[in-house]
């Protein structure tokens, strides 16, 4: 088989694309430069009341940027659609990848069409579709989520199978037995870079949001009473939070995420403490809401305690380790020790920041009149905290949640980069960057591909947070 080029039979379009891209770059630079000298008003109204676009060089550069951007977008779409329609490999590497990603494209399209259709009924999520930045962010994030969901059908090769002839081969090299191509090349052990990148997304997409949710549970459960009651509780908890925050993150990882520490069972003890918080949070949430309906409350509390307790025990414990509570047969979740330690340390590093944010918000909100009204009505402290204060703090918390998932992704990458925690074989992006960077002078793609993947996901999360912030401020 022939090695694939980047664009295959669509190469005829390349000169056009290049020209459009070059003009677009020139127009953007011109626009930024001209913005310094541009007059203030952006729209002028004519004598007949019609609005006219801005004239002059700046107006021209503005229009040029817009149209060239649209043209560029259309060309990229042609490459992607062409690749998905033409037979596999005919439209080069981009086309082949686009064809593999067809389930992702369909899911994205369905999601966007449905969200657009019902955006007025979807609250803050629907408002997101009014902001371009937010939509771009959401699209990037959901792209990676869908890639993670469909990763088994997208990946073309096994993540661990090595073909020695494919070591450090360039993108588009065919596999010697003729069964296909290594679309994004082979790494230093002859594994498929593309498939590893796709499978690696699954690790990030699963761990990062979960760890962030746990960190939020811990931060909220401790931050609410600290801000609401103040006093010694606040002083003590704030001191602890500052203690953890003053710890350089990398040093912490190096101390905690080592095989010796796993032997002592420390991560599991930490997990025992940290994973208790979601259950406490849920119990308090339900108890404060349904306190006046004892029958319903008792049933809900028992349900949460049983289900949550079982999940907790099977999450934390593992037969044959320091914390072995459930017998092997009853253990539902088998978390490898090194995965657990990564999870725990990421939660541990994130929760003090969440605690500080929640505490600050509570300090601000508890001076409001509706809180005083609730207190006068005789509402209990926890009801006020969870059902009066927390919903009113949701805006900043949702924004921070998005940003924090991005930060967690970066932390996971850092752990992988230093070879801590996850096994070196693991396809997660941090570990692959670490493996690829050692041979940068020989082959660049094994490091570049996961690096770009990680960057785009974090960028998407940041843009999403920006869009959410903008829209929630409009309320």
């Amino acid at each position: 088989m022939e090695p694939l080029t980047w664009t295959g039979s669509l190469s005829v379009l390349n000169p056009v694309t290049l020209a459009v891209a070059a003009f677009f770059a020139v127009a953007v630079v011109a626009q930024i430069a001209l913005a310094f000298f541009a007059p203030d008003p952006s729209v002028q109204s004519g004598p007949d009341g019609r609005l006219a676009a801005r004239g002059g060089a700046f107006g021209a550069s503005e229009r040029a940027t817009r149209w060239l951007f649209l043209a560029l977008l259309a060309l990229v779409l042609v490459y992607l659609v062409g690749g998905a329609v033409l037979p596999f490999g005919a439209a080069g590497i981009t086309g082949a990848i686009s064809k593999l990603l067809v389930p992702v494209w369909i899911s994205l399209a369905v999601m966007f069409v449905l969200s657009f259709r019902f955006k007025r009924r979807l609250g803050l999520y629907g408002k997101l579709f009014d902001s371009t930045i937010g939509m771009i962010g959401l699209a990037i994030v959901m792209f990676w989520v869908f890639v993670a969901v469909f990763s088994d059908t997208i990946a073309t090769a096994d993540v661990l199978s090595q073909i020695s002839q494919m070591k450090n081969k360039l993108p588009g090299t065919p596999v010697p037995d003729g069964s296909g191509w290594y679309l994004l090349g082979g790494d230093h052990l002859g594994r498929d870079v593309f498939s590893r990148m796709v499978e690696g997304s699954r690790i990030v997409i699963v761990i990062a949001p979960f760890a962030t949710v746990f960190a939020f549970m811990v931060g909220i459960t401790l931050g609410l009473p600290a801000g609401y009651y103040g006093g010694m509780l606040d002083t003590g908890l704030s001191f602890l939070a500052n203690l953890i925050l003053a710890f350089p993150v990398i040093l912490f990882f190096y101390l905690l995420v080592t095989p010796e520490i796993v032997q002592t069972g420390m991560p599991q003890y930490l997990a025992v403490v940290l994973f208790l918080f979601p259950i406490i949070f849920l119990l308090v949430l339900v108890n404060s809401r349904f306190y006046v309906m004892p029958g319903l409350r008792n049933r809900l509390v028992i349900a949460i305690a049983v289900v949550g307790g079982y999940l907790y025990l099977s999450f934390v414990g593992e037969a044959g380790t320091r914390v072995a509570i459930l017998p092997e047969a009853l253990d539902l979740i088998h978390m490898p020790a090194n995965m657990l330690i990564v999870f725990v340390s990421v939660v541990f590093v994130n929760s003090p920041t969440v605690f500080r944010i929640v505490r600050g918000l509570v300090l601000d909100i508890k001076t409001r009149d509706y809180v005083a009204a609730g207190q006068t009505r005789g509402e209990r402290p926890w009801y006020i905290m969870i059902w009066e204060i927390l919903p009113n703090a949701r805006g900043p918390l949702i924004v921070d949640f998005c940003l924090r998932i991005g930060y967690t992704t970066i932390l996971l990458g850092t752990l992988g980069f230093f070879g801590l925690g996850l096994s070196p074989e693991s396809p997660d992006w941090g570990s692959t960057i670490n493996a690829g960077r050692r041979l940068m002078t020989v082959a660049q793609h094994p490091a570049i591909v996961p690096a770009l993947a990680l960057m785009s996901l974090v960028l998407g999360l940041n843009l999403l947070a920006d869009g959410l912030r903008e829209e929630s401020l409009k309320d």
Partner: protein
Amino acid sequence: MLMFLLRRLATMVLTALCLTLIVFYLTNLPPNLEKLAKSEAGSRITDAEVASWLEKNGHARPLLVRYGEWLGVVPGWTREEGGVTTGRCIARGADPAAAPGYCGVLQGEWGFSSVFKDDVSSIIATRLGLTGLLMFWVMVVMVPVSLIVGVLAGMREGSKLDRSLSTFSIATTATPEYVSGVILIAVFATSMGWKVFKGTATSAMDDITFDNFFLPVLTIALYGTGYIARMTRASMTEVMTAQYIRTARLKGVSFRNVVIKHALRNALIAPFTVIMLQFPWLLNGVVIVETLFNYKGFGWTLVAAAGNNDIQLLLGCSVVAVFVVLVTQLISDIGYVFLNPRIRIS
């Protein structure tokens, strides 16, 4: 002001003690000590021999006592065996009678690195010097660029310039050092892109040139730039909506003068604290970049010490890291109060 300072200092000392105790505990866990014994006394020794080695070298005692010795508030251990007195503070072959009673961090005895075979204090001093150089150039690049970007973006909120500069800052904050470093190397230093930079950062330890130092500096600076720029932008937009700016505009002061003479000073208070608080974060960046570019500074030493179970050196590095973080927090607090006359301390 004095009370505030004293209280801050007391909290800082307490935090430092707690943190060093935690680090001491984590580095002196039984498995670590066992590994140390095996690397010092031979890898094939039995468990009983490990225990006796630990006993002989003063590791088999309560944690708090060992921590006190290391800190220098508890007299160092001594041990008599067959007429020869050994001890924590007694150098090999020295006279036991003349040895000092206390030898810990407070006395300036940082211990001996088991991997680099040198005094921890001298290793850390040289490495910190190298990292200081790196940090200096990072600051030289990062601070002006981020302030200019932030001010330009914030002076006309919502303009095209603001949009493009804000996108730039978001993009840099979304790119951790290990990603931007890899991309910069691929684009500027390998056959895949343009081979502009040919030096290695390892050679920069002796002789710094633009060729061998620009990429590491840029990599660290990029990540921080976006964050500081966004903070500057936020503070600048806030100032630009203030009453006195409107008054100045109505008075007929030109836009340029409003920005430079009226807005800039007030807008730069907030970024100051942010820049100071960046130091701990830069510490992360330094560790990553020094590992990536193989520049043997403080971060590289920390990684090497942690990877080789070099307990004394790791403890020393941790002390320095914790100290840097706490001192910058203190400076940023004091600086904020000092710069902002509206803040009155109760």
